[in-house]
């Protein structure tokens, strides 16, 4: 086993609605969809972000796009102008997510 960044096998984008952040995540190669589905669970994502996200995290699977949509409540420090964060709209939440590490078999081909 070895650890890789989610970024190595996925790409996506973050957006905001009030204090809710959504991050869509797509497998760079369809063969890794199942690996992401298995490894990047809402529970693991919640533990990864810790205090940054105060509310629940729901994952919606979209196999036809080899993708997922993570919807994270109370995730932006209040949202809009209530948030004191530099990135109050969570534009960098997508890349923050992508540096999550996941365990893979050493024989997996990483892009």
């Amino acid at each position, binding site marked *: 086993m070895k650890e890789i960044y989610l970024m190595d096998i996925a*790409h*996506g*984008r973050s*957006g*905001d*609605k*009030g*204090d*809710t952040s*959504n991050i*869509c995540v*797509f497998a*760079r190669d369809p063969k890794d969809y199942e690996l992401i589905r298995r490894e990047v669970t809402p529970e693991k994502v919640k533990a*990864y*972000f*810790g*205090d*940054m996200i105060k509310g629940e995290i729901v994952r*919606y699977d*979209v196999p*036809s*796009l080899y*993708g997922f*949509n993570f*919807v994270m*409540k109370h995730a932006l*420090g209040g*949202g*809009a*102008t*209530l948030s*004191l*964060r*530099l*990135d109050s709209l969570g*534009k*960098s939440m*997508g*890349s*923050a997510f*992508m*540096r*999550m590490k996941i365990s893979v078999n050493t024989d997996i081909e990483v892009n």
Partner: protein
Amino acid sequence: MKKVIIGGGQGFWGDSNDAAIHMIRHANLNYLACDYLAELTLSIMQRQKLKNPQAGYARDFIKLMDEVAKESFDKNIKILTNAGGMNITECVSQLKQVAEAKGLHGYKIGYVLGDDLKEQLPELMAQGVKFENMDDVGDFNDIKDKILNVNVYFGHEPIVKCLEQGANVVVTGRATDSALFLAPIMHELGWAKDDWDNLARGIMAGHLLECGGQGAGGNYQYDWRGVPNMDQLGFPIAEMTNDEFCITKAPNCGGIICEESVKEQFLYEVHDPANYITPDVDVDISNARVVNAGDNRVRIENIKGKPRPDQLKLCIGYHAGYKVVSYLSFAWPDAYEKAQYAADILMKKMQRKGLRPDEVHISYVGLNSLHLGVADMNPELIKNMNEVVLRIAIRTKEKNEAAKLIPEIAPLQLNGPPGASFFGGRAHVQEVIGLWPTLIPRDAVKLSANILEVK
């Protein structure tokens, strides 16, 4: 088979006009739609209007029209926008002046009134509307005396009415971004208002175009280095028939349209992909496909729709206090340690001076101000940092309370750890605007479609 070609000309208020101008000149458009409104924009526009009764809309749109009104009129490219913001009539009046100055006789300006419900709030409360927060936080009674603006997100109907009356341009307030695109497509292809699958396709055309460059290789995580000519990024264009829905871009501009670029925008700011709720239709993209269909061309398939909701979303902006944000930079050696020490000094000063903010947020630009708790805080990395910028932000209820922090920052250049450098001038107190998303019955909203013809 009849085809509608529509371009997305703006991603937000403050976006560049370059791509919209390029599209009018070089793409074979039937329509151009320009979205200016993000969640907070109307509250900011309302503030501007309170200071100046002639402000409160996106003046950028008038500048764009000054460039393209004549050419779009000559080519019969119709333009739709929510640039009217909180002052639709003033936006229309400025647009009329542009059209007159360019001699556009018979130019028809359509406009939609009725999304601003602030004056009707007491009446709606009396009717029993509860204004419960969709995010399940707070009590409406706590904000009802601090309200700045109340606007309802509305769908295609009044925009289609303007087009049916021959409008060359349609100006609205809080039309949903996607309705600006759905309306002309419906109008051209004759879709019924309960043709849910087709309406959902039209909404997704809007969804993929409403953020401008972000739908054509801007903010593109998959391979940003591989995006050609980002300095002249084209914005996306949708081509829609009853059978086929494609995304492309104008010739001779930068950017990229491919499966990955379209997918990143496809789920952007969507929550449940099986229920992307709009005033026009409940969109289901949970089985949709995005397929490469040629050079800078992607085909979208298998979008489904379900009946529209009975309620409409209302966005209420309210005054939520004040904040101050300030910065102080430190250089090697021990840049981070010095910046932390300066933050500690500021915390002690605030306490001693009786300043009790509702919230304090301290972060270090160059280290963890974006990725916060998941930033890499490896001590070896931190030890050799060339520089770091302390960022301190506080939020208070009272304006003079927030202001107390401001004079404490600059003195740390002489009174704190060595090498502190203050930049950007003195901080200022900013108003904090909170957003209160809620729902109201559709039939409580009365919108009107109007036409003004330039003689």
